[in-house]
């Protein structure tokens, strides 16, 4: 059997995305062992929504069998995904959910992701204290789902108060600057809920200020995990693995083979999601995470993916 799968990535501003593509390409090669030839076509560039719509249309012109996309918008692709479906192409979104009925989502539940780390923080603080949140890009759906997630969890704890929520645009340095300003004006906070790479920045600001009494969520790059282990930080991090696209690819190949999901993808706000498990790194399993990343470059993220076997097991 031979399948061609188009991979579209609309933002190249982070190492996580690079790793995402690389792992997906690896996963495609691994199918050779099963006697299936999976060819990937990759479009990966900094584009806006129209630019990424063009990615999809290019794939349609090329006549690929499936498209896996890390989308720049949740809803903007409805029309173009409909075009793809008309052309008989399977569309799978990953990392951010899409509203299109013509696509399914294979990835983590961003809201659950935030809930997990928020719960860790709330429980570590024993259910009371003041916290701040440093968020990604305002208006971005993944960000807003995460915000909903932590707000819901903190809402369950009456003695936890969110004193401020700021946006660091998923930029490490902006996260660091935001944390710096927060520390100056809210010197008595107990916890920080912060996302992704900005966590490294926030932790750095706390260390610079000598504040090792604050609990904060962490992130999953080797650089950070090393610092975490070395300095015994009080942190916990839920994992959005860059392997999500590889997982999506493994699911896609199964679907292209004509198999049916045992449980159809109906989760999520749009009712088309297949959620993957979300690993969590805390002091308990920190050393395992360290080991998994041993010898990798500093920007490598802790990852996990559905293996071919795992994926196949989801199908009838």
């Amino acid at each position, binding site marked *: 059997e031979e399948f061609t799968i188009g991979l579209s990535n609309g933002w190249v501003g*982070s*190492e996580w995305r690079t790793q995402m593509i690389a792992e997906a390409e690896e996963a495609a090669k691994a199918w050779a062992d099963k006697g299936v030839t999976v060819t990937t076509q990759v479009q990966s560039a900094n584009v806006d929504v129209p630019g990424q719509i063009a990615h999809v249309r290019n794939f349609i012109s090329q006549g690929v069998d499936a498209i896996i996309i890390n989308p720049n918008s949740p809803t903007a692709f409805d029309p173009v995904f409909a075009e793809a479906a008309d052309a008989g192409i399977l569309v799978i979104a990953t990392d951010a959910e899409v509203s299109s009925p013509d696509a399914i989502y294979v990835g983590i539940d961003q809201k659950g992701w935030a809930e997990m780390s928020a719960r860790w923080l709330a429980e570590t603080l024993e259910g009371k204290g003041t916290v701040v949140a440093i968020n990604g890009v*305002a208006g971005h759906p993944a960000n807003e789902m995460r915000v909903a997630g932590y707000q819901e969890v903190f809402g369950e704890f009456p003695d936890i108060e969110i004193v401020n929520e700021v946006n660091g645009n998923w930029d490490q340095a902006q996260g660091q600057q935001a944390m710096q300003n927060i520390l100056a004006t809210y010197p008595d906070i107990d916890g920080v809920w912060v996302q992704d790479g900005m966590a490294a920045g926030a932790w750095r600001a706390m260390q610079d200020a000598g504040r090792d009494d604050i609990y904060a969520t962490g992130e999953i790059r080797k650089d950070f995990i090393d*610092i975490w282990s070395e300095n015994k930080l009080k942190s916990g991090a839920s994992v959005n693995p860059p392997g999500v696209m590889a997982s999506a690819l493994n699911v896609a190949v199964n679907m292209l083979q004509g198999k049916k999901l045992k449980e159809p993808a109906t989760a999520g706000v749009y009712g088309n999601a297949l959620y993957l498990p979300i690993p969590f790194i805390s002091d308990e399993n920190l050393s395992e995470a360290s080991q998994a990343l041993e010898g990798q470059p500093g920007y490598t993220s802790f990852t996990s993916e559905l293996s071919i076997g795992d994926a196949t097991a989801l199908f009838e």
Partner: protein
Amino acid sequence: MSGALKPILIAAGLVVLLMIAGEMVSPGFASPEQILRLSIVAALLGIVAAGQNLVILGGREGIDLSVGGVISLAALVAGNVMSGSDAGLFPAILACIAVGSLIGLLNGLGVTLLRIPPLVMTLGMLGVVQGLLVVARNGIPSGRAAPMLSDFVSQPQWLGLPGILWLWLLIGLAMAGLLNRTVFGQRIFSIGANEGAARLAGVPTRVTRTLLYVLSGVFSAIAGLCILGYSGSSFANVGGQYMLASIIAVVLGGTPLSGGRGGYTGTMIGALLLVVLQGLLTTLSIDESGRQIIFGSALIVLLLFYGRSSGLRG
């Protein structure tokens, strides 16, 4: 002199005013430590803005939109060369300056030899550098900052101030000296004011202008190095936020985009003003939409103080 001093005084007054406002809204905002930390962030911006300032002073619509790309590339290269060890610091500095001056040189040659408008040339170069970053990140692992570099940026060193603030001060003095006390400085102003006449008066216009872009590249590279020290490790797109911020800092400091007029002292205060304003907005507990609306409006109000071009009717 008093004419040149006015915008600087306005900017300085506004900084003080914002600090006071900040202290009232969120107590602790004007604490000495916070002032120090804001100054560090301002220094990072200020160093980028030094190069931007020179390019703008040189006139002919001078502007450098590639600074963000250069910062990111320099931070990547430097992090990789030093990879967390003090021994690698010096080679890293050299590597970074080489990268910055090379990109600056290409910008300069495009602008002077091919006569590409600076906005277009440096915008195109930004696209190229961003592409280069993706390639480079696949090829070379990004590394960590040397401890010495991190301490230089964020730990109090001499007289309670971190090294970066001394460096910024030094750059301030050097820029003032360069602009007011050297022949090169004279040449910058003269090509900014009237390139054709300057050329007839023996100014090597192309060489001078090319050097301005080289210097801008070098300043961005130095800033990239410092930002690496600030954040500890290099990461993709570290420099993105500096492109327009550096231009705004220059304009808030009283150097008009038309060139031939202005200086760096004002730009330093402009950088401080911008950072204090952003810091103040961060500490306000409001929606992001509110922050953006206030930030945009505040910038408009600030710009009303300066940078107004003259009317047509004398």
